[in-house]
Structure formats: C-alpha cells, structure tokens
C-alpha cells in the first residue's frame, strides 16, 4: 500500500440517533499518515460518533469513510485489523491481570507464543506496568488503567490509533504523564494517531493538525499555529459591567472597529458581557480601547491581554466561547448512549 495515501478520509458523514438527535451532519475529515490529528470540540459536538464510525462500531446514515485504505462499510474486517482503538472506557477485564488482558487482546489478532509474549513485555515496560502486570486490573489506579487501555490498542501494531478523550477523568499528574506518552507514540514509525479531546490545551500540545468540531461538522481545520496565526496580534478580552444586547453591539462595533491597530471585534453570546478585540499590540491598544468605551458610556469591569489561544479560534469559528459550548452541552442534558461516552 502506498504510504502517502491518507490514513483516514471521511466524506459527508451524517448520523442521526433515534429520537431525532443529530450527531453528525456533513462531517469531513482527512488525516495524513504518520501524523497526530486532533478532533477538538465540546461534549456532544460529534467527535465520539465520528470515531465510532471510523472504527466500524457505528454505521453512518450517509457518507463514506476509508481508513488505512479500506472502506469502513464494505470491508470492516480489514479496517479492524489495521486500527487500534482506545475508547473512553475500554473495559479491561477487572478480575484479569494486566498481562492476561493483553494476552487475550493479542490472541484476537492471531498473535501467539513467543512473539505475543515479547510484544506484551515490550508494552508493559513502555507503559511502566511491568511491576503490576500480574495484579488484577481492579487494583489499578485510574492512570494505570488508562495506560493499559492504550497498550491494549497497540498490541497488534496498528497503522492508525484512535484515542477517544485519552485524558478525561485523569488527575493532572496522570494527564501530564499521558501527554508525554502520546507525544512519544507520535514519534513511532508510521503510526497515525486520531485524537479526540475537549481540552483545548491537549489538542494544542499534541496534535499536528486540528479540526474544530461544532454541532456535527468541522468548522475549521489547520495546524495549531495556522489557526492561531489567522488571528493576527493579541486578544484583548473585556468584561463589561452590563450585558450587551443587539443595539449595544452595533454601538460598540462602531466605537471600536475603526481604532488604529484593531483588526476585529468579536462578541460572546447575546446577553453576555464579554467582548474580544484583536489588536496588533494588545497592551498598547488597551488605553485607546478603554477610552473609546468610556466615550460611548460603557463601563468595563475587567480587561486582559493574551496571546492568541485555541479558545479564540473556537470563538471565531463556532461563534461562541468554548466554555459556553460546554455549558450548553451539559444544560441540554447529555444523552447517555449505549456503551460509552457522549456523542
């Protein structure tokens, strides 16, 4: 197989769950081989559903997907041999030991004997599980279980590894350790990693390319630097004393947009008090901005200057702040899907 062909190509995937819950509407993803690709979005954006389709677990209502050169609908078995999957809850057998879990996983792919044992030793050492390999998984800490989950996904040396929210539920220390682990995996010869996360920081740190997913489709895609680079200059965030409505927006846009060095004025959702302004030099622009607001009689409660972040990218393309999208997903009452995780 040509190593240059994309590891994953998904075109116009749609999926609606019973009860008219639209999980995907026109999802497009292309992942180059040997890279780490991040699907970033709040809970319920459609990341997990995309992964379920790409890993042959769920079928799309329409659209096509090719993973490692195989069509997920026509040749699911070939796809399954080529991929490793680390789901949000991988469900290692709690009464079996770490080693036994790895043994079973390897046998399923037809590995056996010395080859399998060698591979297991290698993975146990790599994920610092050698000392606990003979203990039942139910005695493992959250971080150890997560590392075992990743090891399970790697037993058969897959071409494409899917990591669905790899650090959700981990404490900060275990999260940092997992990030180091994933960064090291990314260095592996030829391994393509598709990562979903709702942590902006995680995507920024691990992924070479990021697709921002919102409401069932990709709203923007690029390298973290490209995405941030499109936002020229610094971000000046201002928190007003009073919420602003539609009329207030027009007034403020007029007052701020023409100022020297100001590129862009973005508002948080209607009825909130936040404004973000993109300026060449945030610190220098601050007095001018505050002065302009004072002239139109708008009081500012707080103001900060920051280098562009993925949160700013999210605001720009999804039209709302990341935290707002998360809160909305929770407010909508997250659908509990059979199996694991949200849509």
């Amino acid at each position, binding site marked *: 197989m040509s190593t240059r062909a994309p590891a994953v190509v998904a075109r116009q995937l749609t999926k609606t*769950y*019973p009860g008219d819950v639209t999980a995907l509407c026109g999802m497009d993803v292309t992942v180059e081989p040997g890279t780490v690709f991040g699907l970033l979005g709040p809970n319920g954006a459609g990341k997990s559903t995309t992964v*379920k389709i790409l*890993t*042959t*677990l*769920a*079928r799309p209502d329409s659209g096509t997907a090719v993973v490692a050169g195989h069509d997920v609908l026509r040749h699911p*078995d070939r796809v*399954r*041999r080529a*991929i490793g*999957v680390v*789901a*949000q*809850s*991988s*469900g*290692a*057998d*709690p*009464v*079996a030991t770490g080693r*036994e879990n790895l043994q*079973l*996983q390897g*046998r*399923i*792919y*037809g590995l056996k004997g010395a080859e399998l044992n060698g591979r297991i030793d290698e993975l146990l050492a790599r994920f610092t599980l050698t000392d606990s390999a003979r203990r*039942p998984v139910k005695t493992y800490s959250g971080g150890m279980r997560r590392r075992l989950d990743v090891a*399970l996904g790697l037993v058969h040396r897959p071409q494409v590894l899917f990591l669905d929210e790899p650090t959700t539920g981990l404490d900060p220390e275990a999260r940092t350790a997992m990030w180091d682990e994933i960064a090291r995996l990314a260095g592996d010869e030829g391994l393509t990693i598709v990562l979903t996360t709702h942590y902006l920081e995680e995507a920024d740190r691990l992924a070479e390319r990021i697709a921002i997913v919102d409401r069932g489709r990709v709203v923007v895609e690029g390298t973290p630097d490209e995405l941030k680079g499109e936002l020229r200059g610094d971000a000046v965030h201002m928190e007003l004393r009073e919420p602003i409505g539609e009329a207030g927006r027009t007034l403020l846009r007029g007052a701020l947009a023409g100022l020297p060095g100001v590129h862009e004025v973005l508002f948080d959702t209607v009825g909130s008090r936040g404004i973000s302004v993109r300026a060449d030099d945030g610190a220098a622009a601050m007095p001018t901005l505050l002065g302009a607001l004072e002239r139109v009689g708008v009081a500012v409660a707080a103001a900060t200057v920051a280098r562009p972040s993925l949160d700013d990218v999210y605001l720009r393309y999804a039209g709302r702040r990341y935290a707002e999208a998360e809160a909305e997903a929770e407010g909508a009452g997250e659908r509990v*899907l*059979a*199996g*694991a995780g949200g849509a």
Partner: protein
Amino acid sequence: MSTAVTQTWYMTERQLMVFLRQPAYLLITLIQPVVWLFLFGSLFKEVVELGGFGTTSYLDYLVPGVVVMSALSSNMWAGMTTLDEIQRGTLNRFLTTPVSRAALMNGNVVSNGLVTALQSLVIVLLGLLGGADYPGGPGGVLVLVVASVLLGTVFAALSNALGMLVQERESIIGINTFLLLPLTFLSTAFMAEDRMPSWMRHIADFNPLNWAMVAGRSALSEQPDWGEVAGRGGALLALAVVAVWLSIRTFRSYQRSV
C-alpha cells in the same frame, strides 16, 4: 471456521475466569443446590408415600428437580454479565477488533453451559452421597446434564437479550425474581405429576423446566422411555436454538444503536 472456534474458546475462557476468580460466586453456585437438596429433601421426605413418584426414596425423585431448578437460577443472570460488559465498554472494545461476532455472543453461552454441567454433576454426586439411586446409570446422568445445559442455554440467551435490550439491572432482577419460583413450582420438581392439581399439570406440560425434568427422570429410571426423552429433549433443543437466534438478533440491534 477454526478461527471462530478458537475465538469462541478465548471468549469462553475469559468468562470462566471471571467466574472462577470470584470465590463467593462460585461457592454460591455450588452450595445453593445443596441447600435446596437438604431443605426440600427433609421437608417433603414423606410425600413419596403418597405414591406416583416412581420410587420409594424422595431423594431419587428430587435430584433431577434440583439439578434443573439450579440450572435455571444460575443461567437467568447471564444478562447481568452482558450488561456489565456493555457499561464497562468491554463489548465495544471487542467489536472494534476482528473477533468473530458469533464468538463474542457464544462465549457467554458456552461458559454458562460448562458451569451448568459442572453444577449438575456436583448435585448428582451429592445426591449419590446422600443415598440417592440412579438406576439409569451414567447414560441417564448424561441425559439429565445435557437437558439442564439446554434449559440453561434457553434462559442464558434470553437473559442476554433482555440485558442488551433494557440495559437496566433492575429489570433483570425483577423479571428473574418473578419467574424463578412460579416456574419451579409449576413443574414436577418437588411433586409427582399424578399428585398435582390438573390445571397445574396442564401448565407444566408447556413449562420447559418440566421438559428437562421429565427427560432427565425418565433417563435415570430403570426403564427409560426413550421416546419421551427424545421428545422433550428435542423440544428443549429447538427452544435453545430459537433463544440463541433471538439473542443474536438483539445483539445486531444493539450494534445499530451504538
């Protein structure tokens, strides 16, 4: 084909390990029948004098009843394991691997069958120790064990289907609690057919539990009625096939809901 068989064994082994590593569970599975054997054996000891039991020792009569009742009560919880595996993410993990779908489903049924066979044999041996007599010999015991495994398969498969369908522990607990005793008492487990009220006898005719008991008892008797054994055994086999087919159908619909 051989891969599917090997994989079924891997899946069976995995389930058996869960069973063997939980000593409390293993102990209950093996001790509960002893309690039944002792309790009912003592309580109803004298009913045998009423006649119609085909033997003068109530224990002879009781053993097949307890074997089949125990097969029901241990297999009807299979759905709990399936539910656990769905909720833990284990099932989805296996579904993204090339493991045969049949192996995934059947591992649970086969491991339950093996446990049922072991449990049945233990009860038969305990009965022997207690002085029960099995004129039908090893052949008769084999028929009883096979019949109880088939009955177990029916209920394990149905329980699996229920687990996947409702995905709620409470439903499985509720249905099982509701079914266990009525199904047992609407059979010839403890009382000879001739001594049962006629309406109960008619119901028992349609009770698969009773099919397994009738087949087992007949095979264990001095002069087995092989026609009866084949008839009830065949009906159990047919029902087991239907139940497994139904559980596979449910499995497919689960996959669509993921």
